[in-house]
């Protein structure tokens, strides 16, 4: 087994509410291998969102170690974490979080503005176009969120998350605002990215159906891991025909 992309060692996170200390994560240790497709489930208040924030370098653990891609990130400053988020992490949110009145192309280009790599405007545009084509929106570069369906909006968000070619994608309830058909399309896209590009994907979800489409299921309860199972994921559609079908269905 190759070195794990994510290694958590006894991660604890305590929030201070007034005089009270509220422990939310009570010692989580976890390895996630490269190229894995993980569903993180658990009841409300089980700590999965807090864990997700720490995994996504938005928050720092109170104690414990977190190695991301071989680098200790749990003690980095906020600027250093911003750099890590920019280069190594892609985010997909339940509410899409697209910029209003902004074209699909500009949405996807946006993270490149914070990248030191210094891609020229034309290269940035080309790459954004490529990403949008990947998610089946190559024809809708100039559309604004108001002109697109929920599924399409979430695909723009996925393209945006992938623009800096991160090794890992964190999706927080990515299908929470979508109907069941669109949910399938998005899940199919995740599976495809996971298989063909080897991108590690962690999905936080309530939906057992979504979890069933992931290879590994991690269940949390009261700030600790309750169960961790690996199984053959349910595939949406046979992998080879996926893409063409999905694109066709969108039009």
């Amino acid at each position, binding site marked *: 087994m190759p070195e794990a992309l994510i290694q958590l060692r006894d991660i604890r996170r305590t929030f201070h509410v007034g005089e009270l200390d509220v422990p939310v994560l009570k010692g989580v240790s976890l390895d996630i291998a490269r190229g894995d497709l993980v569903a993180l489930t658990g009841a409300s208040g089980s700590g999965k969102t807090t864990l997700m*924030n720490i995994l*996504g370098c*938005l*928050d720092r653990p109170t104690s414990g170690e977190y190695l991301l891609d071989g680098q200790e990130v749990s003690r980095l400053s*906020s*600027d250093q974490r*911003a*750099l890590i*988020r*920019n*280069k190594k992490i892609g*985010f997909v*949110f339940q509410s899409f*979080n697209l*910029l*209003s*009145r*902004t074209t699909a192309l*500009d949405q996807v280009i*946006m*993270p490149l*503005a*914070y*990248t030191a790599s*210094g891609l020229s405007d034309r290269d940035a545009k080309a790459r954004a176009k490529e990403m949008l084509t990947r998610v089946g929106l190559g024809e809708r570069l100039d559309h604004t969120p108001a002109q697109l369906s929920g599924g399409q909006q979430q695909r723009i968000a996925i393209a*945006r*998350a992938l623009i*800096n070619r991160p090794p890992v994608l964190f999706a927080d309830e990515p299908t929470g605002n979508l109907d069941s058909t669109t949910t399938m399309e998005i899940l199919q896209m995740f599976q495809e990215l996971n298989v063909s590009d080897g991108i590690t994907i962690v999905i936080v979800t309530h939906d057992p159906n979504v979890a069933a489409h992931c290879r590994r299921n991690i269940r949390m309860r009261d700030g600790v891991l309750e169960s961790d199972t690996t199984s053959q994921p349910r595939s949406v559609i046979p992998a080879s025909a996926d893409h063409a079908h999905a694109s066709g269905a969108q039009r």
Partner: protein
Amino acid sequence: MTTIKTLQTALRALRRNKTRSALTVLGIVIGIASVIAMMEIGKGSSGAIARTIASMGANNLLVMPGTASSGGVTFGAGSVKTLTAEDAQAIQDECPAVAATAPIARARTQVVFGERNWVPTFIYGTTTQYLEVRDWRDLTEGDMFTDADVRSGARVAVVGQTIVRELFQGRSPVGKEMRIQNVGFKVVGVLSGKGANAFGWDQDDIILAPWTTIKYRISGSTGNSPTGSSSSVASSTTTAPSRDAVYPGTTGDLYPAVTSNMLTGGPMPARFANVDQILVAARSGDQIRPAIQQITQLLRERHRLGPGEPDDFSIRDMTESANSLASTTAMMTNLLLAVALISLVVGGVGIMNIMLVSVTERTKEIGLRMAVGARARDILMQFLVEATVLCFIGGIFGLLLGRGTALLVREALGWPVEMSVEAIVASILVSALVGIVFGFYPAWKASRLDPIEALRYE
């Protein structure tokens, strides 16, 4: 994040909210426009005021001959003859702070026309420049005498309003001949009314004539010596008596020939063609000090005065008038500055208000930008640049609107307007500064947001 990208992001964000951006900018536009319009109108009026005060003689300097002393007894200012008409010309040519000069030869004597007679307060022998020096350009009738008249010592004169009233009984004097000291002078022009000066002297009680004529035909023959003494020290002017004999046939040779001895730095002979005083106009109120310095230096040089010797002339300025000019202008400027500051502060508060609203409204966007890798300083810069760009654009439009308003005021109300480059440059800079100052707090607030909280914000 590079500067250009920040600028692009800011412009894109502003375009996303066109109406709001436009309305926000309106505050600055009006602020800057009022500043520019105020400054232009104000500069125009303070220019007009400065000209008015200058016409009262605030910019004038009076160069008087020095004092003579004999055995410890001084004879008062003007008791020696050291100034020449050439000195006046040299001052005008060589002192950069000086706008114009006029030599003056004075006389005080009776003037006769028909059956009436009158003793004017001022009978001034001068050059055509006198009117320019006094900022007294308009004649109600006729013309000023000419340089040729001065050269030839022509018997022509220009009279003031009081003379017209008292001597000519209000009738047009142009073309008539009056007699000054039994010398006939043809009146060629009538000066416009100027009223009394600061000391109560009636400035219209004046006759202007070529200094050559006054000097050689009037004061020369009067002697004008209070004691009648033969001492040249006490008389108001020395004369070249032979001029009476040769007049009016010759034109030149008003000054003694320059000898080789003089050229090599030897002592100057007594000046025959001296004048009583030289009236000097500085270029502006604040040029008075430099003008005094330059004139002093020039005259010391021309009069061959060694380092230890005292000046053989004295320079008087109209300090009181000059001070009133300076304080009026300063008060005007300060008043406008206060108005300008208030307008800009109001505009700036508007910008801050809208930027705060914008930060709150875009909390989610800020959270997202942080999630995809924006550092706190990137967010700070983004909002700061947005505010600054807004103010800058407002400044440009305000500038155009202000210029337009000023021109409209000039056309519609006929007020004097003067373009002020300093005001334009300053208001553009100030508008950008307002953006930075009033944009900083909202931008700082945005940059302090916690990405987790910001993403969850509804």
